C-alpha cells in the first residue's frame, strides 16, 4: 500500500487541482466512486488551508479544541516586560537583557528536561538533584587529580546523569512504582550523593568545588562569541531554518499534501529572523562597565538553542517522539499499537536526566563553582513551573520544546525584574507562585473547554 506511486498526470475524470493528491480511479471502479473523488477534490482547497485566513481559522479551532499552545504565555510575557520596563527603566538595557538570557538558559534546560516527563503524564522530582550530581561529576573530572579534557568531563557527567535516569525509569516502568515516589527518592538520595561527592574530593573546601576560570566549562556562560562569530552563527541557523521550512512546505504542496500556506511559512521565518537579529544586536552592544568593552553572545545561548532544536526534532520527527506523545495521551492505545511502552517511558526518563545534566553544567558554569548547598528542590519546582507556564500540559500528551524556551524566559524575566526592583526573596517566590498558578489555571480552563467540545 505504501509503495503505491503517486498518480502521474491523473485521469481525465480527475479535476486538475487534485490529480496529484488522489489515486486515479482503478479500471473497474464504479461510477459513484469517481463522483465521490470529485466531491472530495472540491473540498481540497479547504482541506489544505490555502490562504492565510483559512490557516488562522484552523489555528483558532486548534486553540478552542484545547491546544492553547504558546499564545497565553506570549501575551503574558509582553505584559510582564511592559510592567518591568515601566517600573525600572534599566530592565530593557543591553546589559540586563543579556543577563536575563543567561538566567533564562538555566530554566529553559530544566523545563526541557521536565517536559519529557510531563508529556508522559509523569513527573520527575529528581531533576534538580540529578543536575547537582552531574555538575559535581563534571567539576571533579576536569579538576586535579583527574584532569580530564573539558569535553570528556562533560560527557562523563552526562553519562552519569543518563545512568541515573535509566535506573529511575527502570524502577518506574518495570516495578510499576509511581514516578512521583521514585523521583522523590531520587531527590533525597541524590542530595546525599552530592554531599558524599563533595567529601571524596579533597579540593572541595566546605562543600564547594570551584571551576577553573580558564576552563571552557567556566567560559560556557562567562565568555562570549565575538560579534562577527555571533552574526555568522545567526545567519547559518536562520538560513538552515528558512531553507528547510520553505523547501519542505513547497515540496509538500507540490505533492498535494497538507502544508501551511506560504504566507505563514514566510511569517514564521520572518519572526524567527527578527527575534534572532534582536538577540544578536542586543548582545553586541557594549555592555561593559568602564574601559573594558564587553560584547558578543554568551556561548550558552547557542548551546540552549541547539538543545531545544535537537529535542524538538526528536519529538516531532522520530518514532520515539511520536510514541512519547501517544503514551502520554493513551497508553493503552500505544500498547495495542505494538509500541514497547515500558522502554519508551524508560528512555524518556533518561532524557529527563540527561537534559538535567546539561542544566547542571550551565548552573555550575554560571556560578564558577558547584556547592552542596544547591537548592535541588527549588530547581525542580522551577523546571515544572517553566514547562507549564510555557504551555505544556500537566496531564500528558500536550507540549513542545518551544514551551520550555518561552516558560524559561518568563520565569527569568520575573526573577530579573523583581530583583531590579529590589523585591525581597520572599516577594520573588510569591510572584513566581502567582505566575505558575495563573499558567496552570489557563491550561485547565482551555482543556475543559476542549473537553466539552466547545
Amino acid at each position, binding site marked *: *500500500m*505504501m*509503495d*503505491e506511486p*503517486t498518480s502521474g498526470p491523473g485521469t481525465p475524470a480527475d479535476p486538475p487541482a487534485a490529480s496529484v*493528491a*488522489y*489515486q486515479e480511479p*482503478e479500471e*473497474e471502479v464504479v461510477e459513484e*466512486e469517481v463522483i*465521490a*473523488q470529485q*466531491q*472530495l477534490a472540491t*473540498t481540497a482547497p*479547504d*482541506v*489544505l*488551508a490555502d490562504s492565510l485566513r483559512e490557516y488562522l481559522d*484552523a489555528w483558532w*479551532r*486548534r486553540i478552542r*479544541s*484545547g*491546544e492553547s499552545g504558546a499564545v497565553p504565555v506570549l501575551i503574558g510575557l509582553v505584559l510582564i516586560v511592559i510592567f518591568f520596563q515601566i517600573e525600572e527603566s534599566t530592565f530593557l538595557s543591553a546589559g540586563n537583557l543579556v543577563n536575563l538570557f543567561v538566567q533564562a538558559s538555566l530554566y529553559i534546560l530544566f523545563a526541557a528536561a521536565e517536559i519529557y516527563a510531563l508529556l508522559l503524564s509523569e513527573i520527575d522530582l529528581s531533576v534538580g538533584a540529578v543536575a547537582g550530581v552531574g555538575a559535581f561529576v563534571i567539576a571533579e573530572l576536569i579538576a586535579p587529580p583527574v584532569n580530564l579534557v573539558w569535553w570528556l568531563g562533560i560527557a562523563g557527567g552526562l553519562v552519569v546523569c543518563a545512568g541515573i535516569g535509566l535506573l529511575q525509569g527502570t524502577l518506574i516502568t518495570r516495578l510499576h512504582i509511581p514516578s512521583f515516589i521514585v523521583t522523590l527518592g531520587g531527590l533525597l538520595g541524590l542530595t546525599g550523593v552530592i554531599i558524599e561527592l563533595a567529601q571524596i574530593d579533597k579540593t572541595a573546601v566546605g562543600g564547594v568545588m570551584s571551576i577553573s576560570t580558564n576552563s571552557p566549562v567556566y567560559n560556557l556562560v562567562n565568555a562570549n562569541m565575538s560579534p562577527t562569530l555571533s552574526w555568522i552563527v545567526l545567519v547559518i541557523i536562520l538560513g538552515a531554518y528558512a531553507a528547510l521550512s520553505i523547501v519542505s512546505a513547497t515540496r*509538500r504542496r507540490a*505533492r498535494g*499534501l*497538507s502544508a501551511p500556506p506560504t504566507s505563514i511559512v514566510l511569517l514564521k521565518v520572518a519572526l524567527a529572523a527578527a527575534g534572532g537579529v534582536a538577540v544578536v544586536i542586543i548582545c553586541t552592544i557594549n555592555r561593559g562597565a568602564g574601559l573594558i568593552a564587553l560584547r558578543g553572545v554568551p556561548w550558552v545561548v547557542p548551546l540552549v538553542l541547539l538543545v531545544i532544536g535537537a529535542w524538538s526534532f526528536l519529538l516531532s*520527527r*522520530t*518514532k520515539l517522539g*511520536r*510514541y512519547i*506523545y*501517544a503514551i*502520554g*495521551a*493513551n497508553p*493503552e*492505545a*500505544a500498547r*495495542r*499499537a*505494538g*509500541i514497547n511502552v515500558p522502554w519508551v517511558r524508560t528512555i524518556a526518563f533518561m532524557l529527563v536526566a540527561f537534559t538535567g545534566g546539561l542544566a547542571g553544567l550551565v548552573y555550575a558554569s554560571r556560578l564558577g563553582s558547584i556547592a552542596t548547598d544547591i537548592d535541588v528542590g527549588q530547581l525542580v519546582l522551577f523546571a515544572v513551573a517553566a514547562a507549564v507556564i510555557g504551555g505544556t500540559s500537566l496531564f500528558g*500528551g*500536550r507540549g513542545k520544546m518551544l514551551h520550555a524556551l518561552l516558560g524559561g524566559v518568563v520565569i527569568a524575566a520575573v526573577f530579573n525584574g523583581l530583583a531590579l526592583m529590589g523585591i525581597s526573596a520572599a516577594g520573588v517566590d510569591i510572584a513566581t507562585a502567582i505566575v505558575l498558578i495563573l499558567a496552570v489555571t489557563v491550561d485547565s480552563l482551555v482543556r475543559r473547554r*476542549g473537553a466539552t467540545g466547545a
Partner: protein
Amino acid sequence: MSTGDSVTAREGGNGASADGSPLLSLRGVGKNFGPVRALSHIDLDIPPGQITALAGDNGAGKSVTIKTISGLWPPDDGEIVWEGRSVRLHGPKDAEALGIRTIYQDLALCDNLDIVQNMFLGHEPLRRGVLDEDTMEIAARKTLDELRVRTIRSIRQPVASLSGGQRQSVAVAKAVLFDAKLVIMDEPTAALGVSQTRQVLDLIKRLSSQGVAVMVVSHNLNDVFEVADRIAVLYLGRMVAVDEASKFDRQSVVEYMTTGLSSRGLQTAGVGAGSNPQASERKQ
C-alpha cells in the same frame, strides 16, 4: 498490492464465498475462567466479504468470543481455522499477522495525535531514519478515500476535534490500512447519535463491499438487521443460532437472545448440534 487483494477479495465476497470455504471457522471452541464455562463448544463460520453480526444478551459470551478470535484469550479447547488451516493465536500480534483487526469500543485513538499519526501509530514508515510523513499522509488519504470518509475537513486535525462517527471512521481506516481480511467491531454504534450511526453503518457496508469480512458485535437489533448478511446468536456461552439474516426476524432473534430457543421453529441448534460447523446451515 492492496488494490489487487481487494479486487480479488471483492469478487469472492459478492459471490458469497465462491469456493464455499469460510475465511474463519471456530470449531468446538470452549473457554473456561476457573469453574465458569464462558464459552462451550462454539461453532461459527465467517465467510469472506460478508457482515456477520454477533448478537447476545449481556454475559452471553460475545466479548469472550471476539477476544478469542483476536488472540487475547486463547481458547481452552476446540480449534480456530483460518483460510482452511488450523491456527493457534498466542497473542494479538498473531491475529494481526493473519489480517484480523479488532476495533474495541474505546477505539484506542490518541486524542493529541492527528488522523494520519493515529492511523500509522506503531507502524510508521521511516525515510533516512526520520518519520516519512509524506508516505503516511498519501496512504492515509487513499484509505479514507476508498472508504469514502468525506466528512473530515483535514486529515491533519487532531482526533480530539472529531465527532464520534468520525472517530469510528478513523478507527476503521486504521484497521484496514494494512491489508485487513477480517475486521471485528465491538458495539460500533453504542455511543452514537442517529446520523453518526448511519455514517458508521454505511462504512461497515462499504468495508464488506471491498471484500473485507466484518464481524459486528451489537445489542442494537436495528443495526444488526440493517447491515448483517449473517446473524449468530449467543446464549449463556452457547451458539444457539447461526444463519443468513433473511432467515431471522426481530422476534426470533430476541427469543434466541433471551431464552436460547425460538418458538418460530427456525432452528434449535444447541450444544449437541454444534459438532459440525455446517450443521446449522444444512438445516435449511
